[in-house]
Every structure is written in structure tokens, then in C-alpha cells.
């Protein structure tokens, strides 16, 4: 099993929210040197769930050779990575650790729709998401205090001008 999209097919003009599931066997590599300086690879399973923002499928493009349609939206992800790590050397593969982690994320995504001219609708073809950082609370607080100070100064100046005008 790999990735599944719900809905798999959308009609032109249809509003939809994409739910994607990426579940199954996991492989790959990680950026960590083992104690012996060997490569480390990964084996395990995953179950990642993605939900997109609300989208609308556009009218079918003209011409039967039209390519993919790109829709931009935001998304959130949650799920599990249950993986084991192996040191790979000439002597073979040796387990060096295993872990089950709940992972989360959110960001912006491009969703590719493939026009199906025979049936007059689209197939959801691919999901391409980029995670975005959550700002530190201290950054938000600093920005907010800046806004408060600016607002206070502006209001004070206006009040002072109004007082001077009345005195004149």
C-alpha cells in the first residue's frame, strides 16, 4: 500500500477537500553518521494522514492534450512513523535503534489534477506539500507589542492635535 486520495476523481466546478493517506512500508536514509562512520538506513511502517484546505476544480481545459492542472492550498498532516535504523557496513546490516514517533506538520501544497476528457472529470494525480515553521511565541509577542506601541502613539498624537485645534 502507498498513497490514496479521497476523492480520487472530481468534477469540473466541484468544491472538495482532499484527504490523502500515505501508509505502508517505509525505507530511506537518514542524515546521521553511525558510531563507526557507516551509512544508516531506515525500515519500518508509516501511517500519515493529510487534509487539504477547500478547493474548487476548474472547468476542463480546451484541447485533449492539456496537461495537469495545479491547485494551491494549505494542508495539515498528522500520523505515525514507526521505524528501525540499521548501520550498513561490509559486515552487513546491524540494528542500532528503533522508534515510534507521532509526527505533525502543516504548510502549503500543490495538488495536481489530471483532466480525463473521456469521462469529463479530473483524477487527483499528486500531492506536493511544503511544511512551514510555526513562529516562536516570543516573536509574535514582540510584533504585537510593536503594533500596540504604534497604535498608542498615533492615537496620542491625534488627540493632541485635536486639543490644539479646539484651543485655536
Amino acid at each position: 500500500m502507498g498513497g490514496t486520495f479521497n476523492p480520487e476523481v472530481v468534477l469540473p466546478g466541484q468544491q472538495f477537500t482532499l484527504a490523502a493517506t500515505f501508509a505502508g512500508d517505509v525505507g530511506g536514509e537518514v542524515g546521521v553518521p553511525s558510531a563507526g562512520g557507516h551509512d544508516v538506513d531506515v525500515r519500518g511502517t508509516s501511517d500519515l494522514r493529510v487534509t487539504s484546505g477547500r478547493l474548487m476544480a476548474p472547468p476542463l481545459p480546451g484541447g485533449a492534450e492539456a496537461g495537469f492542472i495545479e491547485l494551491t492550498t494549505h494542508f495539515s498532516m498528522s500520523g505515525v512513523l514507526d521505524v528501525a535504523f540499521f548501520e550498513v557496513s561490509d559486515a552487513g546490516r546491524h540494528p542500532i535503534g528503533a522508534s515510534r514517533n507521532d509526527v505533525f506538520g502543516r504548510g502549503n501544497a500543490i495538488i495536481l489534477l489530471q483532466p480525463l476528457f473521456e469521462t469529463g472529470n479530473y483524477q487527483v494525480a499528486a500531492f506536493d506539500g511544503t511544511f512551514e515553521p510555526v513562529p516562536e511565541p516570543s516573536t509574535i509577542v514582540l510584533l504585537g507589542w510593536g503594533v500596540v506601541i504604534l497604535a498608542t502613539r498615533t492615537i496620542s498624537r491625534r488627540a493632541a492635535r485635536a486639543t490644539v485645534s479646539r484651543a485655536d
Partner: protein
Amino acid sequence: MRTLCTVLASLLVSLGLSLSPAWADPFRVQDGTLRGDVNGGAVLNWNGGIPSDAFGGLGLSSGAFTIGGDLQP
């Protein structure tokens, strides 16, 4: 004036409090990508910011996790 400042300060505090849990979440991917296609494959690239205690404390700096299908990281 005082009311406005109170409202703004309250807004600030509530915003800060609502963001804190998300920011402090240790296994939140903040730098990476997730790509998947209809043929059944997906790749989660976790480019950085992996907490040192994640994944059994191995100290990963990055990870490319290929999920099903034939996609390569």
C-alpha cells in the same frame, strides 16, 4: 484609549497562548516536504529541526522516508 490597549494586549496574550502548544510540539515537521502520487508512492523529506530525542535519540539531522511505491527520495 485605555480600552483599546486592553483589547490589543488581550489579543496578544491569547494569540501567544494559542501558538505555544503548536510551536512546542517536539515532532512537528517545520522544514521539509511531503510528496505523493496516485501510483502509490510518497516521500517525506524532513530537512532539519529534528529534535535530538526523536527516533530513539539517534540525533538525526535529516531524514528521507520513502513510503510504499517506487518513488526515490
